[in-house]
C-alpha cells in the first residue's frame, strides 16, 4: 500500500505557504486556518487529522477557493502547477477546480443533487472543462468512469437518481466525478465517515487503487487515525487552525512528539487495553477560535505545558526535529527535549 515517493522530483504537486482563513462576524473574527504551510509531493498521500472544529474542512475549502462569505482567505500562497492559485479570480479558479484539484466530501447523501440523474452530474464534471464535448462521447466517458469505480450496469445506472443508490455507491459516484479529469491533487474531506465499516474499507480500497492509477496526490482529511495508518504516507496534525506536527506516518505512530498528537493517539481504542477501563479522553475543550490565547493554543489542555509560563505566553515556532522513525516538524517549545526523551 505504500507508495514510493520520488525524492528526486523537487517540485511539489501542491505547496501551501502561510495560508490563513477567517470568518468575520459582527461580534468576533474566527481564525479558522492560521498560517498553515505544507508541501504535497506528486502522488503523496497526506492525512490531516484533528478534532471537529480544528479547521480541517476550512483548510480544504480554502485551497479550492470555496470559502463562502462571511469567510475569506486572509493571506498566503497556494502554489499549484507553477502558479499561485490563491491570486486567481473565482472565474479563473473554475478552470482549476475539478481539472487540477478535485474534491470529495464527507456525506454522500448530500453530495449529489437529488433531482438530477447520476449521468448528468458526472457529465457535468467533464463538460465543465471540455465545452465542445459531444453528448454521446460524454456519456460514454461517464459510463467508463462508473465502471472504474466498480459500479455494474454502468450504462443503465447513468439514468438513475441518487436516491436509487446506496450510501457506498453514492460515494463511488462522487469519487468518479472527482477523478474524471485526472486531477493532480484530490482533496477528500472525511470520505468514509458517513459509511458503515465494511463499506468504508471498500471505498478506501477503491480510492487507493484509483489514485495510484491516475497518479493523483491526495489530501485525506479525517479524524480516524486508523485510516491514516492504512492509507497515508505522511500526516499533519491540526489543532486550533494550525498544523502542530507534520511528519511521515511512521513517526506519528511510533514517537508522536507534540503533546496533542500523543494525546490524540492515546484516544484510539486499543483492543488489548480495553479491559483496563474507560477510553482516555483529552481533558478540556479546543479553544475559542475567535479569542485565542497569546501562547500555545494547546497549553491550557497540555499535560506537559499546562503549568509552564512560557507555553502560555509565547507561541511556539515550527521546530524541525529528527526522531527515531524519521523527521518531523513540530510546533512545541519542547519538541527537541521530547525527541531526546523518546529516543532514549
Amino acid at each position, binding site marked *: 500500500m505504500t507508495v514510493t515517493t520520488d525524492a528526486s522530483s523537487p517540485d511539489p504537486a501542491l505547496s501551501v505557504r502561510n495560508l490563513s482563513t477567517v470568518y468575520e462576524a459582527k461580534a468576533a473574527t474566527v481564525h479558522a486556518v492560521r498560517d498553515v504551510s505544507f508541501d504535497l509531493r506528486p502522488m503523496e498521500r497526506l492525512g490531516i487529522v484533528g478534532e471537529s472544529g480544528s479547521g480541517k474542512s476550512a483548510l480544504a475549502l480554502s485551497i479550492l477557493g470555496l470559502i463562502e462569505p462571511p469567510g475569506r482567505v486572509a493571506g498566503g500562497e497556494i502554489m499549484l502547477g507553477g502558479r499561485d492559485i490563491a491570486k486567481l479570480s473565482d472565474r479563473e479558479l*473554475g478552470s482549476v477546480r475539478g481539472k487540477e484539484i478535485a474534491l470529495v466530501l464527507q456525506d454522500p447523501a448530500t453530495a449529489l443533487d437529488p433531482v438530477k440523474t447520476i449521468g448528468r452530474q458526472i457529465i*457535468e464534471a467533464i463538460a465543465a472543462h471540455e465545452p465542445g464535448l459531444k453528448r454521446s462521447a460524454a456519456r460514454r466517458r461517464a459510463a467508463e468512469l462508473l465502471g472504474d469505480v466498480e459500479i455494474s450496469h454502468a450504462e443503465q445506472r447513468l439514468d438513475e437518481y441518487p436516491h436509487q443508490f446506496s450510501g457506498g455507491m453514492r460515494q463511488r459516484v462522487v469519487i468518479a466525478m472527482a477523478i474524471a479529469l485526472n486531477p493532480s491533487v484530490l482533496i477528500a474531506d472525511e470520505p468514509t465517515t458517513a459509511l458503515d465499516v465494511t463499506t468504508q474499507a471498500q471505498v478506501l480500497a477503491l480510492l487507493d487503487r484509483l489514485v495510484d492509477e491516475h497518479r493523483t496526490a491526495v489530501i485525506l482529511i479525517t479524524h480516524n487515525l486508523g485510516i491514516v495508518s492504512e492509507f497515508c504516507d505522511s500526516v499533519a496534525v491540526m489543532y486550533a487552525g494550525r498544523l502542530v506536527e507534520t511528519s511521515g506516518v511512521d513517526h506519528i505512530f511510533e514517537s508522536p512528539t507534540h503533546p496533542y498528537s500523543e494525546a490524540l493517539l492515546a484516544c484510539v481504542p486499543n483492543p488489548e487495553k480495553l479491559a483496563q477501563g474507560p477510553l482516555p479522553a483529552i481533558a478540556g475543550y479546543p479553544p475559542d477560535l475567535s479569542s485565542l490565547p497569546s501562547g500555545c493554543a494547546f497549553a491550557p489542555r497540555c499535560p506537559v505545558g499546562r503549568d509552564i509560563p512560557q507555553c502560555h505566553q509565547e507561541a511556539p515556532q515550527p521546530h524541525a526535529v529528527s526522531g527515531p522513525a524519521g523527521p518531523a516538524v513540530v510546533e512545541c517549545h519542547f519538541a527537541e527535549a521530547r525527541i531526546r526523551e523518546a529516543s532514549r
Partner: protein
Amino acid sequence: MSRVVAYRLLGSLAAIFGASLLAFLIMRVLPGDPARIILGPLATPKALAEVNHQLGLDQPIFAQYWHYISDFFTGNWGYSYTLNASVSSLFVERFPATIELALFSFVLTMGAAVILALLSTYRHRPVTDAIVRGASYIGFGTPPFFLALLLLIIFFKSLHWLPGPEGRLQVGASEPPAVTHLFLIDSLLAGQLNTFWESLRHMLLPAIALGIGSFSFMVRLLRANLLEVSREPFITVARGKGLPRWTAFRRHALPNAFLPTLTSAGLVLGEFLAGSVLIERVFDWPGIGSLVFEAIVKQDFAIVQAFILLSAVIFVLVNLMVDLLYAVIDPRVRIPAVTSA
C-alpha cells in the same frame, strides 16, 4: 405511484364533500327566507308555500342536500331571481374576467417573488436582503382592499398613470373578438395592440392588490429555501467540479429550492381564482367576485351557494394538479428508492 394518485383523488373528494356540506348548512341557518325574498313582502302564505315547493325547501333536509349536490355536478346551479338568469350562465359569462386577472396576478406575483428572492440570496447582499424582508412584512400586514384603495389614490388620482376602477377596458371601448375570452390574448390574436395595452394597464393595479399578500408569503418561502439549499454540500461539489458560481446555483440550487414551493404556489393560484371578491369590487372588475358581492348584498342564495362549492372545487382541483405534478417532476416521488445494498 397509482396508490398515490388514488389516495389524492380520495382526499380531494372528501374535501369537496366537506365544503358542500358546509355551504349547504350555512345557507340553511342564515336568516332570511328565500321565498320571501323572491316574492317580496306582500306575498300570500299560499304563494310562499308554492315557491318553497318549487325550490324544494319543503322536502326533508337530506333530500334537499342530495338535490343540491346532484344539481351542482349536472351543471344545474339554480336561478338568480335578482338577475333573472341561470346561475351557470352568469358564471360562464363572468368567469373569464376572473381567470384572466388571477392568471395575470399569479404570473406577476411569482415572477416578482422569484426575482427578489434570488436577489436577496444569491451572493451575500445584506442591504437588498433587508429591503426585501421589509417589503414582505408590509405586504403581509396590509389588507388587500386597503392597499387597493391606496394604489388607486396614488397611481390613478394623483399621478394619472393608470386607469381608475372602470373594469377591464375604458368605458365604451369595444372588446376584442372573443376567442379565449382573455382580453390580453384575444387582442394579440386580433392584432389590436392598443386594446392589448389598455387591457394591460387596467389589469395592473388589481393584479398587484390581489397578489401582494401572496407575494410576501412566497418571497419569504423562496428566500428561506434558497438559503437552505445553497448551503447544501452538493452545491460545493458542483463548484468543486469547476462550475461557475451562477451555473452551480442555477442548475442545482434553484430546482431544489423551487420544488417544495409548488404546493404553496398551487394554494396561491387557488386563492386568486376563488378569493378576489373584494378586489374585484374595488376595481369594478366584471368577474365572479363582483357577482358574488352583489348576490350577498341582495341575499341571492343560489349564486352564493354555487360560488362556495365552486371555489372549493377549484381549490381542490388546483392542488390535485400540483400533487400530480410532483409525481411527474420529482424523481424521488416518481421512482421508488432502492434500499441500501
